[in-house]
């Protein structure tokens, strides 16, 4: 890209922005006042070197968006002692401690910046930011600084913080992680010890050794190997038993067989003074495999943690009214049926309920994906989690939080997920063939030697099992997947399921959900048509003045334009439009005009039937009490790079489809712009799901991109699904991956990387199989001494790991 990018967040800077901050001795361009103010703060507190050390820009939109006054105003709620009870710990001597979830952390420089900045604030005792989990533990003195002050201080350097309570899943992730580490520790330390004994024994084999010393070394090796085998090796033994029970040959089976044989035969050799011990192989084998699995697990945990964080719904507060209609703040999950709550304009509705008082409109996009608010009046039912847009309303809560629509939907989703088609895993298939082959060969080798030299049979079979040790083979896939997962998250894509990458590889059809996937859900003014002789700019100024009071998405399309300051007495009519008055001097004296903007049926003056311009799209009418003044066409914006992506996808032979719940004909317009032929509009979630099922029946592997809650079952039903940035919580939970950036372009790179990953997996597998094909006959013939087989195993595993690391470049 030729244009400049913002020094702070990396977004492109347009020519008419003139924000700049001097950083590290040079003026740097900024894209918005938000970035500018954050950068200024960072410079002012003496942490310019943040810019030298960081490896990644913070995600674009966040700092600017977070500095809006609304966000800062809402913070004062956190100082409410009643609310604090549920997430703040009291420490001795009056101090308090809280866990905050911080969004926007991208690299270690962020952690450093945050800790330095917070530790500099008066009243903060201690602050520790964990980079892997994005959680900060802060303890502070409530007399010197308030909780909202802390969150504001974090916002000043460009991060967003909210109180956090860990969920069950995280605890188990943490436990699993610790257990894996202790297993690795035991295996690693044990392997080091046993290797030294093994080296002594090899030396002894060449140069002669006192039999007493040899026996002693064997006994010590056995002693050290025992905990390694039983404690560290347990996951393989258990995995093998499980896979045999399910009648499916997994990688764990030969691993466990080789380990068990090697261990028990070595113990037997130690007891009976047999020819060979393999304790060093057992330890090394366990250690290498554990490390490989640990790295894989860590990459998986990281993605899981991120998706837990993303779907962690902010702690909801509600204004509960007491008998005197006096509001008090309570956590939303403490509401019971019958409670009355006040919901101000712009607030999220805390629970399912009935409107007692007030008319407003509600944005239900998290349920339906539809961005336009729906009008709600007294007596209407509203759903928890949706957004109250226009006027304050009073609700009576009708269900317990556990039985709310939202919770029910979450349960439905889990069911849909259980029906997901199983993804065929390449490595598993090869592995089970390989395992079967090794087992059959071992039996053949054993029977051959049994007839020719019965005393050697057992030892030779053992060396077959050790040398064909499936170490390289079982590391081939996980190492590549791990490296790819890490690389993907750097590219702004979180693979949250283990089969995501495999699924992406097989995709033949890409299905887009129109609203919010290809478009941003932000409306913009496309066209103005004057119905009278009045100047277009004058009309626009009137419209902008009227719409300035409304936060309706359509009204927001007018906000950037210059207002006519003379329009007075503005009044919002929920879900219809806005009206106002304008005093105008005419030759006959002052005349007051009543102006209305909004839906044609609302704005049209009495007795006039509106004649909408003959062009598809969403038209807004401006009129006074006598005549129609003008029309404005409003359209949802296409996401940046959507057209680029579609043409790339089509070039690489993938079919693209649009599935939309929209009936306005807009889906067709978008499809035409992007060159997509297959469009289905006006589709219900059931329609969408059956469309995907029919694609799947014709043999296609479907990648679904979506954002709304209504897409959640469809996301869960597709072979692989991606939720785009800004998707509803449930869609993110349902999807196999989450795209973090606002742009869709990474998707193309993601698919390329997935291709590359599978090339590397294939190379790894071929190498592992080649190695085994060479080593197996040699071992079967009895040519390979144990030290050589251990060396071969380690070298082939190392090669596989290094090859996988190429993905990270």
């Amino acid at each position: 890209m030729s244009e400049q990018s913002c020094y702070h967040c990396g977004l492109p800077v347009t020519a008419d922005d003139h924000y700049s901050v001097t950083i590290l001795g040079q003026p740097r361009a900024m894209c918005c006042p938000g970035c500018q103010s954050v950068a200024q703060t960072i410079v002012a507190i003496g942490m310019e070197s943040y810019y030298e050390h960081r490896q990644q820009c913070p995600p674009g939109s966040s700092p600017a968006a977070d500095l809006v006054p609304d966000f800062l105003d809402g913070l004062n709620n956190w100082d409410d002692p009643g609310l604090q009870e549920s997430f703040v710990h009291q420490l001795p001597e009056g101090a308090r401690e809280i866990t905050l979830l911080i969004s926007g952390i991208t690299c270690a420089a962020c952690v450093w910046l945050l800790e330095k900045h917070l530790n500099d604030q008066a009243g903060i005792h201690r602050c520790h930011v964990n980079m892997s989990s994005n959680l900060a533990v802060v303890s502070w003195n409530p007399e010197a600084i308030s909780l909202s002050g802390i969150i504001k201080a974090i916002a000043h350097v460009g991060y967003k913080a909210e109180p956090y309570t860990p969920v069950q899943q995280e605890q188990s992730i943490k436990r699993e992680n610790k257990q894996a580490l202790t297993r690795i520790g035991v295996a690693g330390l044990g392997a080091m010890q046993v290797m030294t004994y093994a080296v002594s024994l090899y030396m002894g084999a060449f140069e002669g050794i006192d039999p007493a010393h040899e026996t002693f070394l064997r006994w010590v090796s056995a002693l050290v190997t025992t905990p390694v085998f039983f404690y560290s090796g347990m996951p393989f033994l258990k995995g093998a038993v499980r896979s045999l029970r399910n009648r499916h040959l997994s990688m764990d089976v030969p691993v466990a067989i080789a380990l068990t044989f090697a261990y028990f035969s070595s113990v037997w050799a130690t007891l009976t003074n047999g020819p060979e011990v393999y304790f060093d192989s057992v330890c090394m084998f366990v250690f290498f495999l554990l490390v490989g699995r640990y790295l894989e697990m860590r990459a998986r945990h990281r993605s899981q943690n991120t998706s837990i964080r993303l779907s962690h719904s902010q702690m909801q507060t509600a204004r509960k009214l007491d008998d005197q209609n006096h509001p008090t703040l309570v956590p939303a999950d403490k509401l019971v049926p019958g409670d009355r709550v006040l919901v101000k304009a712009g607030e999220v509705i805390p629970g399912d309920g009935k409107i007692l008082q007030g008319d407003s409109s509600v944005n239900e996009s998290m349920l339906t994906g539809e961005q336009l608010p729906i009008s709600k009046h007294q007596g209407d039912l509203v759903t928890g989690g949706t957004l109250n847009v226009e006027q304050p309303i009073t609700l009576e809560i009708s269900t317990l939080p556990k039985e709310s629509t939202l919770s029910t939907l979450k349960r439905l989703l889990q069911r849909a997920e259980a029906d997901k088609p199983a993804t065929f895993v390449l490595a598993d298939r090869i592995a089970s063939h390989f395992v079967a082959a090794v087992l059959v060969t071992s039996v053949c080798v054993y029977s051959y030697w049994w007839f020719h030299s019965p005393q050697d049979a057992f030892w030779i079979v053992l060396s077959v099992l050790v040398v064909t040790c499936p170490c390289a083979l079982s590391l081939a896939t996980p190492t590549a997947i791990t490296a790819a997962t890490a690389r993907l998250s750097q590219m702004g894509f979180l693979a949250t399921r283990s089969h995501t990458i495999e699924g992406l590889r097989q995709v033949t059809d890409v299905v887009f959900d129109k609203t919010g996937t290809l478009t941003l859900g932000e409306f913009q003014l496309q066209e103005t048509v004057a119905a009278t002789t009045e100047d277009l700019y004058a009309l626009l100024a009137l419209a902008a003045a009227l719409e300035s009071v409304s936060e309706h998405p359509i009204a927001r399309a007018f906000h950037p334009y210059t207002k006519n300051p003379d329009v007075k007495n503005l009044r919002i009519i929920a879900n219809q439009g806005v009206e106002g008055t304008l005093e105008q001097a005419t030759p006959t004296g002052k005349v007051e005009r009543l102006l209305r903007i909004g839906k044609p049926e609302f704005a049209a003056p009495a007795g006039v039937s509106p004649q909408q311009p003959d062009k598809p799209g969403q038209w807004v009418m401006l009129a006074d009490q006598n005549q129609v003044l003008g029309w404005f066409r409003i359209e949802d914006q296409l996401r940046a790079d959507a057209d680029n992506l579609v043409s790339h996808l089509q070039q690489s032979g993938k079919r693209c489809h649009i599935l939309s719940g929209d009936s306005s004909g807009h889906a067709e317009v978008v499809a035409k712009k992007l060159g997509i032929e297959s469009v289905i509009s006006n589709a219900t979630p059931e329609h969408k799901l059956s469309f995907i099922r029919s694609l799947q029946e014709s043999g296609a592997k479907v990648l679904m991109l979506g954002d709304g809650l209504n897409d959640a079952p469809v996301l869960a039903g597709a072979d692989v699904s991606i939720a785009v940035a800004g998707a509803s919580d449930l869609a993110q939970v349902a999807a196999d991956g989450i795209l973090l950036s606002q742009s869709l372009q990474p998707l193309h790179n993601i698919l390329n990387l997935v291709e590359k990953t599978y090339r590397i997996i294939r190379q790894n597998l071929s190498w592992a199989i080649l190695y085994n094909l060479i080593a197996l006959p040699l071992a079967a013939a009895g040519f390979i001494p144990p030290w050589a087989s251990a060396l071969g195993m380690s070298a082939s595993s190392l090669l596989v790991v290094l090859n996988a690391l190429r993905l990270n470049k």
Partner: protein
Amino acid sequence: MDIIFLLIPLALVLLVVAVAAFFWAVRSDQFEDLDREASRILFDEDTQPSAKEKSKSPEQPQ
């Protein structure tokens, strides 16, 4: 070489100590944040003291 009958058991005792130390480290959350510790050393050396830190009284040792 009979000294190995003494030295190896001694080494085993040290091994047990090492394993115990590692378990203690894992249990006390020292391996919680591997990403950050790797790069922490980069930042501390060249911190320029901020204006605020300079003016701050020494009551809060860092």
